[in-house]
């Protein structure tokens, strides 16, 4: 009869069939009075405004209506955040004309968010692609935390891009969060380039919204900032990976605009 083999005395090691061990840590002081683990916080939801400040926005009070609509959306956004106490809504704002710059660069919690009016720049163009490139930087990890909830991108424009917007869009599409982001496009007035907005949204469930009055603009901004954001802040888990699937439930958008006899835009 064969003698039983002795068990191999192996040092601790892993056979990982996929990737190396992700993390190792030793020698930490333990605080037994607190909750186990390090820093705990709510999952962030980043909301990005991409705002057109080109010369045409100076016409017919468009920029004033935009400032007013965003200012009025803050209180409802705070209410939504208060009703969803386990997600932290943070706002960032990009403005674009001849170039794109940050109006609010740091992710600002909605509770601390104050709207400082933006200006439209007479005779300046629409560098939308540059704005896309700025957003693309933020959709990488880092700076976007892995545990974030899907971000919301809201593009508002009254015209058509004057730079190479496709390269900016392509850069944005190459980021890990682009596909998970909810993107909305609001056109101001009948000159807005709806094809570009549709290309930016890239989701048949979300229509391009065209505002022909300041009230419509306010309604559409409210839908994006409140109704859609609410959906992002309390999402159920969605099966994806090999079987595909959507990410977040899309609420019904506002009714199609009722065009009055003399639409101002």
């Amino acid at each position, binding site marked *: 009869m064969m003698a039983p083999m002795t068990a191999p005395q192996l040092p601790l090691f892993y056979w990982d069939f996929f990737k190396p061990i992700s993390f190792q840590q030793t020698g930490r002081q333990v605080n037994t009075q607190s*909750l186990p683990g390090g820093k705990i916080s*709510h999952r962030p939801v980043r909301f990005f405004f991409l705002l057109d400040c080109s010369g045409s926005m100076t016409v017919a009070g468009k920029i004033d209506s935009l400032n007013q609509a965003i200012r009025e959306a803050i209180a409802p956004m705070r209410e939504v955040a208060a009703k969803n106490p386990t997600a932290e809504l943070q706002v960032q704002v990009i403005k674009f004309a001849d170039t794109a710059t940050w109006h609010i660069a740091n992710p600002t919690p909605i509770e601390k968010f104050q709207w400082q009016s933006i200006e439209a720049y007479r005779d300046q163009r629409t560098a939308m692609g540059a704005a896309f490139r700025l957003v693309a930087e933020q959709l990488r990890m880092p700076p976007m935390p892995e545990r974030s909830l899907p971000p919301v991108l809201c593009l508002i424009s009254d015209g058509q891009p004057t730079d190479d917007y496709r390269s900016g869009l392509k850069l944005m599409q190459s980021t890990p969060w682009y596909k998970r982001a909810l993107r909305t496009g609001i056109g101001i007035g009948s000159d807005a380039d709806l094809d570009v907005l549709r290309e930016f949204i890239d989701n048949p469930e979300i229509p391009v919204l065209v505002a022909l009055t300041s009230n419509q603009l306010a309604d559409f901004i409210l839908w994006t900032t409140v109704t859609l954001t609410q959906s992002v802040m309390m999402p159920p888990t969605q099966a994806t990976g*090999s079987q595909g699937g959507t990410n977040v439930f899309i609420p019904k958008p506002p009714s199609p605009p009722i065009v009055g006899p003399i639409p101002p835009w």
Partner: protein
Amino acid sequence: MNDRVTTSWWIWGKSVRGVTHQLQNKPLQDAWGQKTEEGFSVLAVADGHGSTTAPYSAIGARLAVETACDVFTALYHSLIVPDASLYLNMAQRYRLAKLQIPRDLRRRWQDTVLQLHLESDVTNNDLKVSDILRLYGTTLLTVFVTDNFAILSQIGDGAILVVEEDGTVSQPIPRDQRLLGVETTSLAGKYAEQDFKISLLMFEPSSPMLFLVCSDGYVNSFESDEDFHMAGIDYLDRLHKYGAKYIQENLEEWLTQTSKQGSGDDVTVAFIWSQQQKLVDPKITVEKGSQENAQDAE
């Protein structure tokens, strides 16, 4: 019978309902379970998806942990000869881990779900098989541990930590980089077998260590992976200082607070803590997977 050194495992866990589930009037959709026999223990955690397309995911999660206990028990008895578990060669271990476990877990769970659904919900009988499975969609994380090796498996989000006595923490199955936001792979998926991640861990029989298995509601409550991994060190330290009973008494409150201050999601954390023990006359113990039937090896 000759004296021999074997390992005993303390196993405990808890699932708590998250704040968002309370606000949305949703039930707890996480589950955990365990089974121990002489020679091995298996611990399983599952997180039902909870989306509108998976209304029965709480049931799916429960079935998943029961399935895991059954599958690993069957595997142990069929492939690992009792008292010879130490001698399973590398090729057999590899095959077991890489091929058989994902296949058996997926098949057994899907068969159980279909049977249950067809028996209980005749109104939906004209649904396609894939649609029925999706109603019960869930993740599944398991740790199967013997005296000298462990097999970790995971489909979907959540995490498994290994904490050694010197405080070294590792996550042998890293986060699936394909999954962001609220996405997960699923036991209900058509290609579930390919979505399983497996890790084989070998150690000396006398190596005590802590396995921590948790749902994504726990992982996502921490600001970073480093903050999450610190939890592993803290639990092991508290086990050493205050004993298993202290963890059992406080775990529910810790998880409730973590969910409230963190992700708001359902949270499950379960442990296997190995302790070297010298047995003269080993006795077989069988424990059915249940939150209430945890082994107390203090």
